[in-house]
């Protein structure tokens, strides 16, 4: 029998008045275990059963009646109203607070303490756009508002509000970044909007009463322009092969020359220098340039480092004969002003083919990545002078390509020597693109 049941039986016998000794004697094998339990049970059974006295009961009932009466009494109206209306009032207060806060933030203007909150809050729509194009468009929409804020603050105070201006440029930069991998048409459209920002900033700079503000606006305009150029260059479709002697028209680009700074190479594409060609190099002056000419640093300006007030038009534009080589799809901004019309004296009767040099670089580029490499601003990427066979006249070793092209020319573009309508003489040195 289980000990629990044996104990229960022993407790029944104990309650019936049997002596513990007799009980334990009937279970000698469990006596040692049962003894302390029966001892405790005997102690409990020997106790009286206390109960409340009548006085205690009466006092308790009086207390209960008082409590019941107090609970039954009607509460004052303000207490009832407070208990019922308090949650509603709290909710209403919270709603009013939120509405007032949002409206205050939304109506804040540059110079207000909470304008920074508005700048942050108005970027919220960007977060709920899920395609790069939509996000870029949303960034530009926000940048439009910041431009309006800059204009408004300038009109009222004559100064530039830095938070708004920074937000504008940040928006343009974000839009450019999001549009980086979009199709060319979309990129061109976005670049156009950014150029519009740059144009308006330039216009504001022209009318700014404060020279400092004008300078800030010019810097910002230059930066916006750089971003637009960088993006727009990638948006350009591959240029069709130009006919020999037909220089690129400034109107080919999507931006007017006046508003577009000179294209700045933004991606560094290592161009293998040409080895001395076994072919005779004609001393034709077509591409002859001063060999001592070195690229000026401002040719290598990066997009993000535009010196205020500096014209970004390239000052070193080597004379170039319009090339018959199709321009390969470019990853770097190609502005209309990038490809200069041939301005250097070119012998009127000198056929370009006479100075053509085979370009070994065409076959050496398949491994070139088409990725954009950003280079810290003002980090000069200079041309690598290449030894040139001695000629009667100093021959320029710089590539007379004013428009930085992507540089990835398919082998099919390889010009054929002796082609009468072939490409112009190939220089032995081409400027490296910098990002």
């Amino acid at each position, binding site marked *: 029998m289980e000990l*629990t049941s044996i104990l229960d039986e022993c407790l029944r016998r104990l309650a019936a008045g049997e002596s513990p000794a007799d009980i334990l004697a009937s279970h000698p094998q469990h006596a040692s275990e049962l003894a302390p339990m029966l001892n405790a049970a005997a102690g409990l059974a020997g106790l009286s059963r206390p109960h409340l006295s009548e006085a205690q*009961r009466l006092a308790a009932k009086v*207390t209960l009646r008082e409590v019941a009466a107090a609970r039954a009494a009607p509460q004052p109206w303000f207490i009832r109203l407070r208990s019922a209306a308090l949650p509603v009032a709290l909710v209403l207060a919270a709603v009013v607070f939120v509405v007032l806060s949002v409206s205050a933030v939304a109506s804040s203007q540059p110079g207000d303490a909470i304008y920074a909150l508005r700048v942050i809050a108005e970027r919220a729509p960007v977060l709920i756009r899920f395609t790069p194009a939509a996000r870029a468009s949303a960034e530009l929409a926000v940048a439009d508002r910041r431009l309006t804020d800059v204009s408004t603050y300038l009109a009222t105070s004559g100064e530039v509000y830095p938070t708004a201006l920074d937000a504008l440029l940040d928006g343009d930069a974000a839009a450019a970044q999001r549009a980086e991998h979009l199709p060319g048409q979309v990129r061109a459209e976005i670049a156009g909007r950014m150029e519009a920002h740059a144009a308006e900033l330039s216009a504001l700079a022209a009318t700014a009463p404060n020279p400092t503000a004008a300078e800030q606006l010019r810097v910002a305009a230059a930066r916006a322009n750089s971003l637009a150029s960088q993006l727009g260059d990638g948006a350009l479709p591959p240029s069709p092969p130009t006919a020999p002697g037909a220089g690129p028209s400034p109107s080919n680009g999507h931006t007017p020359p006046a508003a577009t700074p000179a294209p700045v190479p933004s991606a560094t594409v290592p161009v293998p220098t040409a080895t001395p060609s076994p072919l005779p190099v004609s001393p034709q002056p077509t591409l002859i340039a001063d060999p001592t000419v070195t690229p000026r640093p401002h040719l290598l300006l990066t997009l993000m480092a535009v010196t205020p007030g500096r014209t970004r038009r390239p000052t070193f534009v080597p004379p170039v004969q319009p090339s018959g080589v199709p321009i390969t799809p470019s990853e770097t901004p190609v502005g209309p002003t990038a490809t200069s019309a041939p301005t250097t004296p070119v012998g009127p009767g000198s056929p370009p083919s006479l100075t053509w040099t085979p370009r070994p670089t065409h076959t050496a580029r398949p491994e070139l990545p088409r990725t954009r490499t950003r280079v810290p601003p003002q980090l000069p990427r200079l041309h690598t002078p290449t030894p040139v066979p001695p000629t009667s006249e100093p021959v320029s070793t710089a590539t007379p390509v004013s428009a930085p092209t992507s540089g990835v020319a398919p082998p099919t573009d390889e010009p054929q020597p002796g082609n009468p309508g072939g490409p112009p003489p190939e220089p032995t040195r081409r400027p490296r693109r910098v990002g």
Partner: protein
Amino acid sequence: MAIDPAIDDAQITSLLPRCQRGDTAAVEALYDLYADRLYRYLLARVGNADAAADLTTEIFVRVLKNIGGFRLNSRRPAASFSAWLYRIAANLVADHHRQRRRTAETDLSEDLRIATREPTPHRLVEQQEILAGLSQAMEALSEDQRLVILGKFGEDMSNAEVARWLGKTEGAVKSLQHRALQALGRLLGAEEQPSWS
């Protein structure tokens, strides 16, 4: 057989709605049903008659304040209401012990009224010592074990009655009783030879 009349489900189902409507007579009827049971439980746990009486009143004050939100178990009305009352009592005991620790109250058994079958002075002193130790030993038990001991030895309930009261099976009640007596025997100094052995 329990010394107090058993509480059946019909009594609770008729009194409780009246209490919830604020009927003071119904509240007093409930007090009469449960007061002594709760008092014994409280006395066993706090060891002080006045404190136990005050706490008994406090239980019913809390019942009055909170009975509007109490939902009766329709299948076991008396057991569910009883469980609610003892839960309130246990909370009050815990509060009482916390307060007592702060005030360093020490008297445990002076107010215990001991009635013995043989009320000799020697027996009275012995019972007082047992009760003093018992009050402390009861705190070492679980709540279910305390209630089983209280039902079996304070109310003279049978196993079946305790099982119904606590909503447990008779086997569970026997098991709880076994473990409770084991603990009490150990805590009350079971090593001492019982007087009857």
